[in-house]
């Protein structure tokens, strides 16, 4: 039997620790946990706001959820659009960030200028700005989409692949714009790799290509997982996400398919989809490490 040693906590450490965390704890209980529970209750209710501002909550079971998933085609379309976007964005952003991080990490002169440049979009990106770029057609290069004949392509490859390709060519620059933080995170990961490992591998006759797969990629796997999680979350909370627009638009209406209760139910469904996507991606990128280490 394994003997479990009971951990002893120093009394003054406990007191100080809790003291430092107290503001956060109060905030979490009042501004996150309580709203979380309220929102769950709302999602199973019809919520109406009286003229004097009072809130009346009447339970209605799974009605909101059923309506959202079965009748509200606008919501299911938004959900689908969101999931497709995440599934396309995450691998592309991850790969491009890694390529750029490796270029910037190559100790060439002038890379700090490019590092500053690639980080700039992080500073200025907001919903209305990106919206303008997309509406003005500057989210991609003019002509990129013309290079590919989409109608011809859709005869030979499945439609969803064509749609995916079209999406990527339409918003190519915007995808690059979302890489800023990820590039820097990858760079810190790359800098931690011991140079002598590469030298040893080169002496043993490994090519650069083999070095990348056998040394670089396993070494930066923790950074990779962080970047994937970060990308999923940042893309999810970005204000152009169709679900966010849908929830914000519907929260103030009355009747079935709108109001606080219905908006809360949509938010919870959205949360479940987000968790599924997040877990899926993390498992996908983590299992790769095990494969290459063996």
């Amino acid at each position, binding site marked *: 039997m394994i003997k479990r040693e009971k951990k002893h906590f120093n009394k003054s450490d406990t007191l100080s620790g809790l003291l430092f965390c107290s503001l*956060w704890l109060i905030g979490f209980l009042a501004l996150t946990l309580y709203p979380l529970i309220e929102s769950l209750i709302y999602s199973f209710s019809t919520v109406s706001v009286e003229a004097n501002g009072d809130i009346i909550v009447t339970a209605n079971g799974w009605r909101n959820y059923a309506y959202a998933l079965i009748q509200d085609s606008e919501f299911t379309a938004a959900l689908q659009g969101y999931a497709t976007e995440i599934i396309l964005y995450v691998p592309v952003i991850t790969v491009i960030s890694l390529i750029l991080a490796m270029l910037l990490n190559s100790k*060439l002169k002038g890379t700090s200028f490019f590092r500053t440049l690639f980080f700039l979009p992080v500073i200025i990106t907001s919903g209305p700005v990106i919206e303008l770029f997309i509406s003005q057609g500057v989210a991609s290069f003019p002509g990129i989409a013309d290079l590919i004949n989409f109608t011809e392509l859709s005869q030979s490859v499945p439609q969803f692949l064509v749609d995916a390709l079209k999406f990527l060519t339409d918003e190519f620059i915007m995808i690059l714009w979302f890489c800023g933080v990820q590039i820097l995170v990858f760079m810190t990961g790359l800098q931690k790799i011991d140079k002598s490992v590469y030298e040893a591998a080169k002496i043993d006759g490994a090519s650069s290509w083999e070095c990348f797969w056998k040394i670089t990629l396993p070494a930066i796997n923790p950074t990779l997982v962080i970047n994937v999680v970060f990308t999923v979350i940042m893309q999810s909370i970005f204000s152009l996400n169709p679900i966010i627009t849908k929830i914000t638009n519907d929260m103030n209406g009355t009747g079935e398919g709108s109001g606080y209760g219905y908006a809360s139910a949509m938010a919870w469904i959205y949360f479940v989809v987000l968790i599924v996507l997040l877990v899926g991606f993390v498992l996908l990128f983590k299992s790769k490490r095990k494969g290459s280490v063996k």
Partner: protein
Amino acid sequence: MKSIKTIWKDEDFKTRAKTVLLGNNEKRGLVPQIICYSLLILFGFVYLYPILYMLAYSLMSPSDVVSPTVNYWPTEFYWQNFVEAAQTMDFWSSLLSTILVSVLPSVFQTVSTCLVAYGLARFDFPGKKIILGLIIFTFIVPTQITMIPQLVLYKDLGLLNSILAYLVPASLGQGIKSAVFILIFYQFFRAIPKSIEEAAKIDGANSLQIFWKVGIPSAIPAILLSFLFSVVWYYNETVLSAIYLGGELTTLPLQLQKFQASYESMFGTIATSGKSVNEAIYMAGTLLNILPLIIMYIFTQRFFVDGIDKAGITGE
């Protein structure tokens, strides 16, 4: 003199040429360097393309905008677009409220996240792992879930339609993306060697004094990074600003969002005045919206990059 043929046959010359072009273990060759630089320049141009396009377009006169011969570069610099865009967005007063809405909550957010991260990084106490787990959980939970009950709560507390709706959550560590800042600070504070803390303890300092004298000075890059990021994220927030701040504090991104409508109510629609919001004015408005951020970035870019570098977010 050797002929070209003999030079080419000369093994020594061959290896030297190969080293210059392709490089060896110590030095990078010319060919990989050229490839790296071309890729960087290519990507750099792609990154800047929307901004350059916007800059050129915003200086086009109305006749340039409709002219089929003018594509990328205006025939003359037409500054009137910026004047009209600034009027439409009520630029100076919007800028003032944007600065208020982004800087003030950021100060509170930085202080509160710094405190909780220090508590978690430097002290061992029961429930610490649970708190860390909950912090990561708050990062994952979409704002849309807590948004509505928070709205009701803020209304009851009288925080709505004022900056308090941002300040209260920020000072309790529940501001926009607080979890990210807590994790950054956590990494920093954990890197402080225990011995420094013990030395301070022997000198009779209590934990608050140690925090102030040892913790804060070692976390300066993290403080700058968190504050700047916080400013950027509060600045660019539109969904929550629209809901919590109402019509009281209109930020520049919110002005940009309703640009078309504001323009029409100010200068009339095509039907009434013959003018319409042409794309050039819209572009000028967008530039005005991001200009304060770009100015800030020019002066602070090294703190962003250095901070992330030193934060060493590697997932241990």
